[in-house]
C-alpha cells in the first residue's frame, strides 16, 4: 500500500527499550506510550490495529 519495504518484528516493551534499539518506527496501543519514552524511534499510537486506513495514514505521516 505504501510501497515501503520494511522488516517487522513483534517485541516486548523490554526488547523495545533494550540495548538493541534498531527500530525506526514503533507501533503501540496508547496505554504503552509512557513505557516507550526515551527510545530513539518514532513511536506511533494506534487505536485500531486492524484499520488499514489509520495505519497507512499514520505511517505515511511519520515516514515522509
Amino acid at each position, binding site marked *: 500500500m505504501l510501497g515501503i519495504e520494511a522488516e517487522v518484528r*513483534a517485541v516486548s516493551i523490554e526488547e523495545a527499550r533494550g540495548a538493541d534499539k534498531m527500530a525506526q518506527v514503533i507501533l*503501540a496501543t496508547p*496505554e*504503552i506510550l509512557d*513505557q516507550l519514552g526515551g527510545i530513539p524511534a518514532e513511536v506511533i499510537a494506534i*487505536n*485500531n*490495529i*486492524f484499520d488499514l486506513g489509520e495505519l497507512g495514514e499514520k505511517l505515511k505521516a511519520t515516514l515522509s
Partner: protein
Amino acid sequence: MLNSYFGPGSIVTQDTSPSFMAAVTQSVSLLVASGKTKLSYIDEVLESLKALGPYFVIAPGLALAHAKPSDSVLAPGMALLRLDEPVMSGSANDPVSLIFSFCSPNASEHMEMLGDFGQLMSTDKVMNSLLNASALSVIEDILFKNAL
C-alpha cells in the same frame, strides 16, 4: 490458517462477564484447558494487565489478551470468549465484546499468528459477523474458513 491455533473447546459464547478482568481470565483459561499453556500463563497475562492497563484492547470492541513468550507457553494457541453484553476495560476502544487470547512460544510464531489474524480481522464485516453469529459453528466458519 487460524484453525491450527484454536484447540478443542477454545471458543465460548455467553451472556456477559462480571468484569473485564474476569473475562480475560476466562479467555486465557481456554488456552490452558486446550493444552496450549500452563496455568501460570494466566498470572502472566493478569500481571501485564495490572501493570500496563488494557493495552491489548487493540481495536473497537476487541481484546487480544496475551503476555510475552515464556516457559508457560506449550504451543502457539488462540481462544475466544464472545460476550453478548460487552464489558468495560478502560480503553478508548470500549465496550469489549470479543475477548481473544493468544500465546506464542517465540517471536516468529507470534508474528505469523498475528499476521493471519490481522489479515482476517481487517476484512470488512468480519467483526460484525463475529458479533452477530448465532451459533458456535458460524464463528468457526468465519475464523477457520473466512466464510462471511
